[in-house]
């Protein structure tokens, strides 16, 4: 066991008087005290002066993009649950990665975040950050005077962080403070306040005493860890995963029926939202597959899924299907006005031998083609079953598919009561003249 996890060939290179170095040493003490070996620790660092941290340690290191350190840390920790994962970021990374901080707090994965909070963007010249006081003089002119700084702990608490504490880079028990955060099983946030002599204190007065005083004046819940009992995310993830049922592979079909013809059929189901148009399209595909046909299905519907048109375009073909678009369908199932209205153009291009199954009440443009009226309402068939019922009418006509194909498809697609009621539709449709 080495007596330090510090990188002997890369000593800290911070500005003279920078408090970051104290945190490097305190983190090392904490890790040593916990008896962790180099390979058991990963330091994930952000951009800015806090982004130098990983190089000063002889541990696993992952230095990434500004504000995104928490995202890498989460992936790493989920992949390696036994690894001690520490994220270092500044008040800059906190701001640009705000969404990731909130998510990390909400999630409660066992990662420790050390915010090296020195109230400005040191590396880029001392611009204001999310924690810069309103009255500070910084390189951003008057801009910081217009924005309210955030308190790291309160922000984290609002997002559900189970462990938050504010402290000073200069306090004697900083190693113990860090160790306590590291030992917490869950997401721990430490707001470690410090001094940036290269930029911030050139124009602003800030001393270790002032930081100490400020912390002393803040309410306890903003500076001290108040334990919240939440189970760690990784643990919960693994528990919940174990309860999930294995994924079902996509529904498959063996060719088992002769196809009614050698032709390629292009079919459009034009309906309204709620008429189970997409499901009927899928059943038509499975029916085709049961006769060894190649199939494609394209759907179209509004983002407001409970309103507007619902359209399914299906191709059944004895050969491989190249182009999947339909401009001139051989069959249209016109069961809803919204769908018909959306595809007005198609009706103008129909061939005279096209078949149309139309439910009463749906107005069609003047068309060439043979129309088969199917009054499903009169048969007491519910609106949501009209698409499937229209397929049954099509099966009765026998040119595109037959009843055995449809039955096989329904049996592959539905189970138990849904299957029974779908099969019962056959008898209702039989009555149709």
């Amino acid at each position, binding site marked *: 066991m080495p007596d330090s996890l510090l990188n002997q060939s890369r000593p800290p290179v911070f500005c003279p008087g920078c408090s970051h170095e104290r945190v490097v040493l305190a983190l090392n003490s904490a890790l040593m005290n916990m008896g962790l070996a180099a390979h058991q620790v990963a330091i994930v660092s952000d951009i800015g002066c806090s982004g130098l941290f990983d190089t000063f340690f002889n541990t696993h290191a992952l230095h990434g993009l500004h504000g995104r350190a928490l995202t890498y840390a989460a992936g790493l920790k*989920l*992949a390696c649950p036994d690894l001690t994962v520490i994220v270092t970021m500044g008040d800059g990374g906190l701001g640009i990665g705000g*969404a990731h901080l909130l998510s990390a707090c909400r999630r409660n994965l066992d990662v420790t975040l050390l915010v090296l909070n020195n109230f400005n963007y040191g590396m880029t010249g001392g611009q204001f950050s999310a924690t810069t006081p309103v009255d500070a003089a910084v390189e951003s002119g008057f801009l910081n005077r217009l924005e309210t700084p955030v308190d790291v702990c309160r922000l984290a608490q609002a997002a559900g962080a189970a462990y938050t504490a504010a402290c000073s880079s200069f306090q004697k028990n900083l190693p113990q403070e860090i160790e306590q955060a590291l030992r917490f099983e869950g997401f721990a946030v430490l707001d470690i306040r410090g001094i940036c002599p290269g930029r911030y204190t050139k124009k602003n007065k800030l001393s270790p005493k002032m930081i100490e005083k400020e912390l002393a004046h803040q309410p306890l819940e903003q500076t001290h860890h108040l334990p919240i009992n939440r189970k760690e995310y990784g643990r919960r993830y693994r528990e919940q*995963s174990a309860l999930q049922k294995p994924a079902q592979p*996509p529904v498959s079909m063996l060719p088992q029926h002769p196809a009614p013809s050698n032709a390629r059929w292009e079919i459009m189901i034009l309906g309204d939202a709620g008429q189970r148009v997409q499901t009927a399209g899928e059943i038509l595909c499975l029916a085709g597959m049961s006769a060894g046909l190649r199939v494609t299905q394209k759907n179209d519907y509004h983002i407001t899924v409970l309103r507007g048109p619902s359209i399914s375009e299906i191709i059944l073909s004895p050969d491989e299907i190249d182009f999947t*678009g339909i401009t001139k369908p051989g069959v249209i199932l016109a069961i809803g006005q919204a769908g018909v209205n959306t595809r007005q153009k198609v009706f103008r291009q129909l061939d005279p031998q096209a078949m149309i199954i139309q439910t009463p009440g749906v107005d069609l443009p003047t068309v060439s083609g043979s129309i088969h009226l199917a009054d499903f309402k009169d048969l007491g068939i519910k609106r949501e079953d009209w698409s499937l019922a229209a397929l049954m009418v099509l099966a009765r006509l026998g040119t595109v598919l037959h009843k055995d194909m449809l039955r096989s498809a329904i049996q592959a697609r539905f189970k138990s009561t849904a299957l029974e009621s779908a099969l019962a539709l056959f008898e209702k449709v039989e009555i149709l003249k």
Partner: protein
Amino acid sequence: MSFCLMDGNEAVAWGAWAAGCRFFAGYPITPATGILNAMLAILPPAGGICLQGEDEIASMGYCLGASVAGMKVMTATSGPGISLCSEQISFAVGSEIPIVIVDVQRLGPSTGSATRGADGDIQFLRWGNSGGLPVFVLAPTDVKDCFELTVEAFNLSEAFRCPVFVASNKEIAMTKESVAIDVRQPRPGRERPAPRPDLPYLPFGVNGDQKVPGFLPIGGRTIVRQTSSTHGPDGYITTNPEEIALVQQRLLEKLQGAPEFFSLYPEKTNAPPDFIILTYGVTSRAARAAVKLLNQEGRNGAVLALKTLWPVPEEIILTQTRHVQQVFVIEMNLGQYINEIQRVLPHKQVHFHGRMDGTLITPLEIMEVVRHAR
């Protein structure tokens, strides 16, 4: 033979599963959401991890964190999301982190149309990283390709330690097809190269003419350094121009040096054709239909459907068009890949036809383009 019915998004997810992907993170976005849904159904019950990120940047960050730990990872998004991922793509390129990124393209620019297809990101995928180093981009033409090319994307990504894009399209991703694939059949592929055991480990160290550094995971017994900063073989930041130049040159040559590995699936033709329709993605299918009809009329055409778009398979393009006078480039955008074809074939008649209005380019349209070409 049993066929199954699935769409391109499901096929990508099952392809990833078959290739050994056990970590996925994504943000819901039409038309790529189906991949997130499928991965959520597939991975957790099997001991894998599927996350819904707070945004696309985070989703890819989660993946990169898991990838440096040795997992096979994938994310999926569409135009607006792939735009956000740009900085993470650069990270994966520069730090040689394997990841498969599926871009289910939708009509742009910007928010565009969520439920309308296009191939509008083809140049963005190539050039959407800072530094401009090369990437792999594979373009499926149908649902079967979505499965096969995703498997291939993992092979390339792992073997070359780099991001690999699958440039899907709403018109494939959300179209169901009958396909003869057993999605449960594992498709073990190539792994990340291992470091030489006789040398001290350097995370970006290569020996001789080796192009891909040996991989060890963060979290293993050996200490590993990973960094997005300009680095030397040891993974430490460097400003030494010679050291930097060597790494950059290697990153360039790594992807360009072995075209036989990644130039996928050119269409085979029998007799030398008189003209070639050069295309990719879903448009290949309209091109095939068009050429069948044109050849029935007595023309002698062929389709060259490129499935590797980047790096540009120049040898294949040159060989396949050797005896051809006219080349037609058809794209579901206003002209992107045509620039590459004109560069590779400066002495040929290269015609372009493109359309980007949210609908498929039709076989009739392509036939007209060929008929009226001078």
